[in-house]
């Protein structure tokens, strides 16, 4: 028995409501993030990631209140991502009860922000989110680049080098999303997952592309991920978290059952 691999359901939240739809069978208000997070906690989720896609300033206040409510009722680690651009944003989320924040675009435009954040709040609560896309041709050695704006804008940054740099700047964890795979339900990009996981000493969370339980297994066994993040397979009751955990454990993966 040792450290368990983690399953992390991800909630996309806009103005205090879960979007992208969550359809639990016997839940009345499918849009309330706190109710959904509590449900996942009860099912045995190892952490919750809360992705805030709210654009307006007023909406951000709602987000803080939602995080506060969630932290009063859900007693597993809670990561908040989306719109984290300054130390004040981090302070506000941690005060509301988040355990970690995830920095994405702001890290690309201002890498020193990651350094400052890690020094001020500790690496344990700084997750750097990396959106990577494969840029190598079929006959070339595999290479991935960092993209921003939901995968639309290339940055010219090599994903593996970038991950190394972010860790040297103090990132305590990497949340890696493959932009090619996201929403495709055809599995993680195992190449980039493994390349980054082997390049850095901090935990790597694989994200983007989960459609089956075998994809979760591959992410850990072949991609060498320390945790797997998924949204739709759990939201739509295709699989429950206990099913996913039992499936992974049966394939020799250490899980918290």
């Amino acid at each position, binding site marked *: 028995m040792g450290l368990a691999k983690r399953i992390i359901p991800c909630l996309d939240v806009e103005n205090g409501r879960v979007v992208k739809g969550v359809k639990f069978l016997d839940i009345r208000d499918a849009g309330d993030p706190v109710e959904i997070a509590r449900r996942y906690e009860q099912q045995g989720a*190892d952490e919750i990631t809360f992705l805030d896609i709210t654009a307006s300033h007023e909406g951000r206040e709602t987000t803080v209140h939602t995080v506060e409510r969630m932290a009063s009722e859900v*007693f597993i680690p809670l990561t908040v991502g989306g719109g984290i651009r300054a130390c004040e944003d981090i302070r506000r989320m941690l005060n509301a009860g988040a355990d970690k924040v995830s920095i994405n675009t702001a890290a690309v435009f201002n890498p020193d922000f990651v350094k400052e954040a890690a020094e001020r709040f500790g690496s344990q609560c700084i997750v750097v989110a990396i959106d990577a896309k494969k840029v190598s041709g079929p006959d070339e050695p595999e290479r991935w680049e960092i993209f921003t704006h939901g995968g639309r804008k290339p940055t010219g940054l090599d994903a593996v080098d970038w991950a190394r740099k972010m860790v040297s700047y103090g990132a305590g964890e990497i949340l890696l999303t493959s932009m090619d795979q996201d929403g495709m339900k055809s599995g993680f990009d195992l190449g980039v997952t493994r390349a980054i996981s082997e390049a850095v000493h901090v*935990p790597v969370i694989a994200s983007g592309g989960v459609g089956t339980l075998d994809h979760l297994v591959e992410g850990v066994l072949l991609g060498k991920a320390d945790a797997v993040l998924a949204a739709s397979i759990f939201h739509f009751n295709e699989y429950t978290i206990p099913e996913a955990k039992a499936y992974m454990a049966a394939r020799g993966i250490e899980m918290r059952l």
Partner: protein
Amino acid sequence: MASVAVIDYGMGNLHSVAKALEHVSPETEVWVTADPEQVRAADRVLLPGVGAIRDCMAEIRRLGVDAEVAEAIASGKPFLGICVGFQALMDFSEENGGVDCLGAFPGRVCFFGDDLRDPHTQQTLKVPHMGWNCVQQTLDHPLWQGIEQNSRFYFVHSYYVQLQNANQVAARCEYGVGFDVALAQDNVFAVQFHPEKSQKAGLQLLQNFLHWDGRP
């Protein structure tokens, strides 16, 4: 009304600890405070902590929390240290090039290392040790009541405690090396993991703490 002081020395997130305490015992007053009078007045004292030990120890000394902790331990009232609040009770930590800690208990805080490996498979292990690991209780204690042997708790740390006095070890864990994850001595209990983030088992431990009379 019973009260618990969560010592606030400005490091990290105390809100999750306070919220978990309020959740398990709405009838207990939870004071997040650095005020010595309030810490003295509380029935129970909790020393949390996240982040780097050098900064934690600097704030602990600047705010006089070192004296508050010594007084609380000597008073015999139930005392709980969490994570860096556990490490701070030791003599010395290797972190940040070496930092003297409170010296309340003999022991050292050691680095997992840059090349930590599973002794059986030789696979590289990530540092920090982050996630849910099994906790092996090594003695009977009121704080373990209702918690199954080898229950999983949530950890996040790069440094671990080695207690000098084996009689003070209340639990062990394995991650490349074996290390001490809980200390028990008289009215003091301290843990490396985060009970406030460890769902059922963690909430049970906090509830046990709020009902504990401080006797082993």
